């Protein structure tokens, strides 16, 4: 049973957001002209998207830059009114009863810090404790648990400005989750972090998810998606182009495999039936792509061995990056998951 079918925690129907802005020139003359007369333009940042997020799930919201992901997340957090459409999160309509709604959610926006720069995170935590009205016992227990998960130790008692980006991001997570929110929105939480810090954040998200927190995550890091997301929603040009799980995502382009072949000797004009040569690293090293749903692997291997001699071969799944890139490039044609 999918997360969405288990019980929708978040319901989005025909969500649309339109902005009005002005065309500004780039050359000096255009800038001076636009000082006296400006052309108004309408931008549809989000265009009629609908999806569900199940309770206790982790949903990845993907899309190229400017696709409408952050605008969608802002509407889900109640900090932006939609132009039209419906949103329901845990029974709340986010942009109504803001104070009551935001008690139930947490958010980490990668570029917008809640921590106060010149003092230790522990002081910022205490401030949030007062704002959310967290009882002391619960606060101590939860803070201790999260600090242990992140192995922060005394770091929380150093001024924020001396912490590394990874340490600061861990503290941002703690800040966002001290009050035990049921749903947490993450907008590019691993941006700029090293591989170890990223892995710690992912492990943390998994641990908290196991305790029942629902996560909605926007990211450009596909490792985040592969490790965490059980549901993926892809937005492009403001429209939803994919909604399903990871295995369905991989199969959107068919059951494609990448074959790396090391030839025994150069083979000019080599052609393999039902496979396409997509790269040549040298005279002897080729990369092919084949759809094994159309040609089984055994048949493919027969085709290759009948046409050339090779000293090494590897067959792997199409990288997620390639899948996503092709979906982004294909535009807004929706793909069912």
């Amino acid at each position: 049973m999918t997360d969405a079918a288990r019980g929708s925690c978040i319901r989005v129907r025909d969500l649309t957001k339109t902005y009005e802005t002005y065309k500004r020139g780039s050359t000096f003359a255009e800038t001076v002209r636009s000082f006296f007369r400006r052309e108004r333009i309408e931008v549809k940042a989000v265009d009629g998207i609908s999806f569900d997020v199940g309770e206790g799930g982790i949903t990845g919201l993907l899309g190229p830059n400017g696709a409408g992901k952050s605008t969608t997340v802002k509407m889900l957090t109640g900090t932006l009114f939609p132009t039209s459409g419906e949103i329901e999160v845990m029974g709340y309509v986010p942009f109504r009863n803001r104070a009551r709604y935001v008690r139930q959610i947490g958010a980490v926006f990668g570029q917008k810090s809640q921590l106060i720069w010149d003092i230790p995170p522990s002081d910022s935590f205490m401030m949030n404790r007062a704002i959310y009205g967290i009882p002391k016992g619960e606060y101590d227990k939860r803070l201790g648990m999260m600090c242990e998960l992140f192995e922060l130790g005394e770091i929380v008692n150093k001024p924020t400005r001396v912490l590394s980006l990874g340490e600061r991001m861990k503290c941002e997570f703690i800040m966002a989750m001290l009050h035990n929110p049921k749903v947490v929105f993450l907008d590019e939480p691993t941006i700029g972090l090293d591989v170890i810090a990223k892995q710690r954040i992912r492990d943390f998200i998994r641990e908290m998810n196991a305790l029942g927190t629902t996560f909605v995550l926007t990211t450009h890091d596909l490792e985040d998606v592969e490790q965490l997301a059980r549901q993926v929603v892809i937005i492009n040009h403001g429209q939803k182009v994919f909604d399903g799980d990871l295995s369905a995502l991989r199969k959107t382009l068919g059951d494609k495999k990448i074959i790396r072949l090391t030839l025994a000797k150069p083979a000019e004009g080599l052609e393999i039936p039902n496979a396409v040569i997509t790269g040549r690293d040298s005279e002897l090293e080729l990369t092919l792509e084949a759809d094994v749903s159309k040609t089984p692997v055994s048949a493919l291997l027969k085709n290759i061995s009948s046409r050339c001699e090779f000293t090494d071969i590897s067959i792997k799944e199409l990288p997620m990056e390639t899948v996503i890139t092709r979906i982004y490039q294909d535009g807004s044609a929706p793909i069912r998951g």
Partner: protein
Amino acid sequence: MAIFGECFRISLSTAMAYRANFIMVMTILFFSNTLFPLVTILIYGSGSGFPGWTFYEVLLIQAVFTISSGIGEVFFNGLFWNTNFAIRDGLFEVSLLKPVNALFWGVVSSIQPTGISVVLGGVAMAAVALAHTAPLTVASVSMAALLFLCGVSVTFSVTCFMSAISFKWVGNSRIPEMFGSILDFAKYPQDVFPLAVRGFTTIVMPVAMIGYYPAAALLGRADGASFVAIVPCAIFSVFAIWFYQKMIHRYEGVGG
């Protein structure tokens, strides 16, 4: 000059991109200068004044101060804010990576065209003042022009000092306030102050050159002290530039 011209063009484009704010800032800065001598107007309106000085003579001191401040507003003041913020945020390296002198880059990349309205306000005040004072002579105008240039150099030097202090007092946005309180002495006839104060504002930190001495020259009231005051201006400028360069070496990349 090419770099300067390009930076001026960019700063004008940037300022004009925010149309409402550009118009508002220009208007505010212009009218704020008609409010500037308000205290003087009200003092003389009460029936009193500064002994030995008419209202228009005091207004001329404040007009010259305003014109010099306006030039500072356009060309120099941005140096302080950009330096202050860059040091605080650990971004000063961006300036140091440019293949030009850091102080030069700091000045040309901080031009604020809206300050032109302050200059215009000062010119308007000066026109009103000069219409009610003794006629100008070639000698008085020449002398005043020389002293005015010295005053502009003092304005630049004060900004240099403030920017240099930013390397030590990281993130302190009140440094201009501190220097502003010293500059207050320069807005009035210097003979209202005791000798010790006048010595400070003429020799140690020659802020009196920003308004008083050039105005006194225009009024034909320049004396030996006016000429002597040129030397401290030169020394002050050299010291300010040296101080700024020295403080760059102390720069700490973590913003203090």
